[in-house]
């Protein structure tokens, strides 16, 4: 199992994937908004989306787990 982690504090703007989706390494899975800028978060490893730990408009801190892949 691998985790997609937030690279900085911000608000979850868009979740680009759903549970069960097959993700490639480097694929953008979440877009955060921080200080009025869009931050794309990419998966570091490929896998299948097992769980989405956050909701759109939620606030996340640097290091928070956004998505779990298997």
């Amino acid at each position, binding site marked *: 199992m691998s985790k997609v982690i937030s690279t*900085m*504090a*911000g*608000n979850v*703007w868009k979740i680009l994937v759903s549970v069960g989706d097959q993700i490639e390494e480097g694929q953008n899975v979440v877009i955060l*908004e*921080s*200080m*009025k*800028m*869009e*931050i794309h978060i990419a998966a570091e490893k490929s896998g299948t989306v097992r769980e989405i730990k956050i909701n759109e408009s939620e*606030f996340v801190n*640097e290091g928070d787990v956004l998505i779990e892949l298997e």
Partner: protein
Amino acid sequence: MFKKILIANRGEIAVRIMRTCRLMGISTVGIYSEADKNAPHIKMADEAYLVGGPRVNESYLNIDKILEIAKETGTEAIHPGYGLLAENAAFASKCEEAGLVFIGPRPEVIARMGSKIESRKTMMQAGVLVVPGLTYPLPDADEAVKVVEEMGYPAMLKASAGGGGIGMQIVNNEAELRQAFASNQKRATDFFGDGAMYVEKYLENPRHIEIQILADNQGNTLYLWERECSIQRRHQKVVEEAPSSFIDEITRQKMGEAAVKAAKSIGYSNAGTIEFLVDSHKNFYFLEMNTRLQVEHPVTEVITGLDLVEQQIKIASGQTLDLSQADLQRQGHAIEVRIYAEDPKTFFPSPGKITKLVLPEGSEVRHELGVEEESQVTPFYDPLIAKLTVKGSNRDEAITNLQKALADYQIEGIKTNIPMLREVAAHQAFRDGDTTTNFVAKYLK
């Protein structure tokens, strides 16, 4: 004169406005969100009130709550700063309805110039040349493609309600235009509540030169010369200076007079800025008008010796301008750099805690700060945390002073664009005055 003013803003501009209020003996009311509980502007205010949660729409855009605080505190006037509610015509109207003075122009004027599309139409009617492009909103991407095919690429796609560089993008072909239309419309809707889009012809390597105007409620209107703001990243200004080393005295006067004509044609009052794009032949085209104080107003204050916030407050209290165009003098050269909490190369935001803050000192240096040591820079607001303005008796001296000041500016705990600013200040192209909106892409590694 007002006895009490509420500053409906945060960060460096709230501090700056309060400083003038203090000098004028006016009591200040500050507002803050939960994220700004320990912010400098709160400590500076004579009284301060929590207005809501960290997100702007819960707090700094919460009109009803702000007006409630204003009424309960016996506030007489509200200064909106820049951004946030500064160009919100509905807010200005509600202030009036509540018996409060909004420090700025009338609501109808704000509304008219707040839409870039409407303002272009208004300027054309007033006989001011505008940047070639549309004066109606594009219904969809298909129409955008049709228009741009006729006009020619490259084009600048823009959100009519945009600001701070958001919602605008240069497009070079149909595929880019279609993708940009969707994403920028969404961004505009999310940030400004209005997804109207239009296009302008992209002028090659233009200079962004804007004119500061000041008008009282009786229609007396002056221009306080220009500011050159071409060095930008993400279409947001980073370095601004006054005067411009590119335009000559004749162009300066023509632009000033065009700005005054434009302002008078809409019955403008209080401080405002008319932004122009200037091509390599010194032709200037109206871009948009900002019906408020600008971030970069300090460079104008430094070369004219005027306090623009003081002028705003006096005008709002009903005073006639005690200056005339002939009286105005300017001296020396001023450069302001914006310090953003971001990575100096990627420009990605860098929220976090400021563990060290050491500022350069000297009579040629002026600071505006929205933070202090131990401040937490949160992700909820614009990344601007401070401004540094330096002056010199001429541009070369100002640049040398800028380099010295930046070398002594220390911020630790977060990333800032100070390394990028140092690179700009040291660059020969900057010295040479080769400052167009292409500067960052062209000259910085």
